């Protein structure tokens, strides 16, 4: 039994597997399958300052080896989250990460301030939601805007701050560096890649939002590449995500440079995936004679 615990920005996770924001709600639906302490942490469904209704349906389409989604940040708002979900979540024996998105820097700051006085363990700043006009992605695609919003939120945030990066950019490394320079404690990547599907009978996009975010195994190699590039260029921890479906994917992402992992789309086909990934990872570490999962991070030997 290897040590699976990891430390990200001063927060200890029992194991490196974190439920990815937007795929796991606030955890209640999945505790039907297993105790939430099975996971090292939960990144909650993205919350905004005020309640959001989300996009009209259809919000999802299947693609080869992936899905496109455009939920549009449907959520009950930060106050509702803090009143109704947070204390229950904190009792589940896992790290609770609040994922926040906003229309303006002021909204991000206000949420960071509210959550700083709550029991959440960490804040994940979503500046990469591709599915709403003002869901943060306007802040996430240039070094200047990423730097500015990170600096602003950092001033109001007393919790460890993780910045979630968009892959829909020309140079993710310089954006990662901008976030690090302005005080991000950790980075998480990748959010979804913008995509589109069209129903050839009707000529209509399948998703009502026309475009959506691509996730699942289809994006995994892109995610591995970006995690490798970013983790090589920054000194803060990188939480890797994007299409991780098996324990082998988990090992690969850790080798690329991730210190922890987020698991999302695979839950839709297999709710038990985190259990299997954790077990497979544990066995792999034993087989390789490694005492801690931390020994895997960044061990890729590039040519």
């Amino acid at each position, binding site marked *: 039994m290897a040590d699976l615990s990891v430390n990200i920005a001063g927060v200890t996770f029992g194991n490196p597997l974190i439920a990815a924001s937007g795929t796991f709600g606030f955890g209640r639906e999945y505790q*039907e399958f297993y105790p939430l302490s099975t996971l090292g942490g939960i990144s909650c469904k993205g919350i905004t300052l005020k309640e959001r209704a989300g996009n009209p349906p259809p*919000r999802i389409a299947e693609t080869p080896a*992936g899905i496109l989604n455009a939920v549009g940040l449907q959520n009950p708002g930060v106050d509702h989250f803090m009143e109704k979900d947070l204390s229950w979540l904190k009792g589940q024996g896992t790290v609770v990460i609040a994922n926040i998105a906003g229309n303006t820097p002021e909204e991000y700051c206000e949420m960071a301030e509210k959550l700083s006085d709550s029991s959440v363990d960490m804040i994940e700043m979503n500046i990469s939601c591709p599915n709403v006009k003002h869901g943060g992605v306007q802040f996430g695609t240039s070094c200047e805007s990423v730097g500015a919003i990170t600096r602003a939120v950092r001033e109001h945030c007393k919790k460890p701050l993780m910045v979630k990066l968009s892959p829909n950019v020309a140079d993710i490394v310089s954006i990662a560096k901008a976030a690090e320079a302005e005080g991000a404690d950790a980075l998480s990547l990748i959010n979804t890649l913008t995509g589109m599907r069209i129903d050839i009978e009707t000529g209509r996009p399948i998703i009502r939002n026309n475009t959506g975010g691509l996730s699942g195994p289809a994006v995994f190699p892109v995610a591995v590449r970006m995690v490798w590039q970013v983790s090589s260029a920054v000194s803060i921890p990188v939480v890797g995500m994007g299409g991780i479906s098996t324990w082998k994917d988990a090992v690969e992402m850790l080798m690329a440079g991730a210190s922890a992992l987020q698991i999302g789309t695979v*839950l*839709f086909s297999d*709710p*038990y995936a985190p259990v299997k990934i954790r077990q*497979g990872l544990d066995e792999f570490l034993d087989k390789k004679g490694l005492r801690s999962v931390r020994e895997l991070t960044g061990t890729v030997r590039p040519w």
Partner: protein
Amino acid sequence: MAGIKNVLKGSHDYTLYKKRKSLVNRPQNMYNKKQNQRLAFDGGSYMKYDTQQCRLTYKEELAPGVFDFRLQNQAFAASAQPGQFAHLLVPGKPLRRPISICDVDQKADTLRLVFEVRGEGTQILAQYQVGDCLDVLAPLGRGFTIGDTSRRALFVGGGIGVPPLLYAAKQFGVNATVIIGFRNRDAVILKKDFEQAGCRVILHTDDGSAGRGGFVTESCREELENCEQVFACGPAPMLKAVAGQAQERCVPCQISLEERMGCGVGACLVCACKIRKADGSEGYLHVCKDGPVFDAKEVVW
């Protein structure tokens, strides 16, 4: 896949966890068997569902491209309620396929699922043979509120919207009138099943090749006078028309909806359905967890 889960299930922690949940957390299922009424919605924690390997014990092509599967699983057969659905893993596909539960045989421990081949996923499912095992997540969603089965009920179904009505209609037996519509004679399914349950069946086909010609809504208008409640499932235009007719006559109407779905348990929020709340404001609920059955009055078309 099952192997790893068995490892998990065999562990002390997991066994205790499931035991604790089944004892303390909620009623065995969402119906109170004595009153046969749905228990109060308690914020989403009433459901009890899991993934299970289920053996396909019977398979039949009821009409071209429409398959009847019987899947054996004791736990599912014991807890599935009329109008709920099962989420079927399709090997190689990132999304499961939601299929409504058509009927339950508690003696044979089987769920009956009737589905139409519509795309690649259902095409793959249709290739399963008797004896094969499928990975099934069930029972899911809020089904029909059955209430007093001595009160006359009208069931209205169109096409592949007919199967979700059978298990509910069987509860009413002779007190059910069932109006079912199909494209043509070859597409007719389940007529005998409703008749065997004692229901009065009115068959429609779009081209008049069997039963009455024209849409189910024509018969619905006539039959609404003789019923106290309506249960409907089918294409959205049909549901909208039936809901309108029921509302004109102030007859309660429950409709089963479908939408492109993700997780199936209410976490991912993709299968949105627009609902008018009690205060008049509109918002989205979700077909997988809040539905698939909704009160027709609250649905915004």
